[in-house]
C-alpha cells in the first residue's frame, strides 16, 4: 500500500495539475466582473493554502517532533527543512500571482494589505530559516536551532497577522462562501477551485517527498564519508 501510494503520488499530482489547468483555462467561463483575470482564483488561493498552512504546518509539526526527546530523529529535521523549502517557493508564487491580480484590480503591483504583508514577512522568515541552515555545518546543531526557529516563527505568525491586520486591510473578501456560508461561485468554477486545492496539495506532497529523498541521500553520503574518515582515522591509530 505504502509502495503504491509512493508510486502514485507523482502521476496523481501531475494529472490533477493538468486537469486544473484544462478546467481553469478552457472549461470554466470568465467572471462577470473580473473577466479572464478571475482565472487566477484557480491558482492563487490554493498556492496560499499550501504556502501558509500545509507546508508551514508540516514544518512546525516536524520541528516540534524533533525537539521532543522521545520523537527526536533526523527524519523529522529533514521533513521540516524540505517543507520550509517548498513553503518558501509557494510563498514566492503566492506573492507573484497576488501581484499579477493586484495590478489591474488595485492599480499597483504592491499594497500594504494585511494578508499580503504578513505573507511577505513570513517569506522573509522562511529565507532566514534557510540561511540559518546554511550557517551551521554540524547536522545536530543545525537541526536543533532550525527547529527552535521554526517553532518561534509558528508562535509569531498569529502575532504578525493580527498586527498587520489591525494596521490596515485591503484584501479581497471571502471568495468562495458568503457570510451565511452559502457558495458564492457555482458549477464548474466551484469544482475547479476544489480541484486546484487538491492538485496543489498533491504537488506539495510530491515536492516535499522529492526534497526529502535528496536530503536523505545527502545524509547517506555524509555517513559514507564519515565511515571513510573513520577508517582513515583508525588507520592513523593503527600505524
Amino acid at each position, binding site marked *: 500500500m505504502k509502495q503504491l501510494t509512493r508510486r502514485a503520488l507523482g502521476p496523481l499530482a501531475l494529472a490533477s495539475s493538468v486537469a486544473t489547468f484544462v478546467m481553469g483555462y478552457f472549461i470554466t467561463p470568465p467572471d462577470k466582473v473580473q473577466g479572464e483575470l478571475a482565472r487566477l482564483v484557480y491558482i492563487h488561493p490554493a498556492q496560499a493554502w499550501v504556502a501558509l498552512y500545509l507546508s508551514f504546518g508540516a514544518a512546525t509539526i516536524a520541528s516540534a517532533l524533533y*525537539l521532543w526527546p522521545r520523537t527526536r530523529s533526523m527524519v523529522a529535521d529533514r521533513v521540516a527543512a524540505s517543507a520550509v523549502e517548498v513553503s518558501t517557493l509557494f510563498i514566492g508564487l503566492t506573492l507573484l500571482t497576488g501581484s499579477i491580480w493586484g495590478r489591474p484590480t488595485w492599480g499597483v503591483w504592491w499594497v500594504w494589505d494585511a494578508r499580503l504583508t504578513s505573507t511577505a514577512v513570513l517569506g522573509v522568515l522562511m529565507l532566514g530559516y534557510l540561511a540559518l541552515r546554511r550557517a*551551521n555545518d554540524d547536522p545536530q546543531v543545525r537541526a536543533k536551532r532550525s527547529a527552535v526557529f521554526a517553532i518561534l516563527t509558528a*508562535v509569531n505568525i498569529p502575532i504578525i497577522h*493580527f498586527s498587520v491586520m489591525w*494596521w490596515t486591510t485591503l484584501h479581497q473578501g471571502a471568495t468562495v462562501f458568503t457570510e451565511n456560508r452559502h457558495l458564492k461561485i457555482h458549477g464548474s468554477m466551484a469544482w475547479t477551485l476544489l480541484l486546484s486545492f487538491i492538485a496543489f496539495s498533491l504537488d506539495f506532497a510530491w515536492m516535499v517527498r522529492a526534497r526529502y529523498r535528496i536530503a536523505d541521500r545527502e545524509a547517506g553520503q555524509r555517513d559514507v564519508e564519515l565511515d571513510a574518515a573513520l577508517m582513515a582515522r583508525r588507520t592513523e591509530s593503527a600505524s
Partner: protein
Amino acid sequence: MRLVLLVAQKDLLIERRSRVLLWQVAPFGLMTLVLCGLAVGPNASTQAKLAPGLFYIVLTLVALLVINRASQLESSRGTATSVQILSIDPGAVFLGKALAMFVQLSIVGTALLAGTTVLLHVPLHAAIVTLPVLLLATATLSLAGVLYGRIAASSTNAGTLLPALALPAFAPVLIAGERAFSSLIASGPLARWVWLLGVALAAYACVGLLLYGALEES
C-alpha cells in the same frame, strides 16, 4: 529568581565595565535618528508625523546591536565552556539575560525618545505618556532578542545572520509601538496595541522558558 538576578547582575556589570552601550550603541542610535531627520526633510510637521515610526525603527536597529553584544559575551570558546560547566538552569539564564538587556534597552530607548522629542518635534506630553508602552516594547524585544541571539550565536557569520532572523520577527513590535505612539499623539485607539505587545511578550517568555535549554545544548 535568585539565579535570574545573578545572571542579569553579571551582564550589567560587564556592561558597566566595557561601556559599549554608552560609547558605541547610544551614539549609533542618536546618529541614526539624526540621519532619519535628514532623510525626511526639514518640514517640522512631516518630521512630527513620521517621528513614531522613525523612533521605533531606530530602537529596533539599536536592539540588534545590544542583542549581538549580549550574545558575544559567551561566544569565546573558553568562556562558553566555563559557563557550560557551571550548568546554570537555562530558564534562569534566559530570563536573566533578557532582564539585563531590558535594562540596557530601556535606558537607550528613553534617551532616544528624548532625542526624538527634540529633533523630530514630538509633543512632550505624548513622549512622556508613551514611556510605559516603550518599556513594554523593549521587554518584548529583550525576550525575543535573547532567543534570536542564541540561535544565531556561534554560526558562520553570526553578525549578519542575526538581523536576517530577528528583524522580520520584530515587525509586530515595530507596528504596535509605532501605532501606540501615534495614537498618543493624535488620540487614536491604544488598548489593542498594548494588548498585542503583551501577548507577544507572553509568547516569547513561554517559548524561551521551554526551548532555551535546547538552544544551549546546541
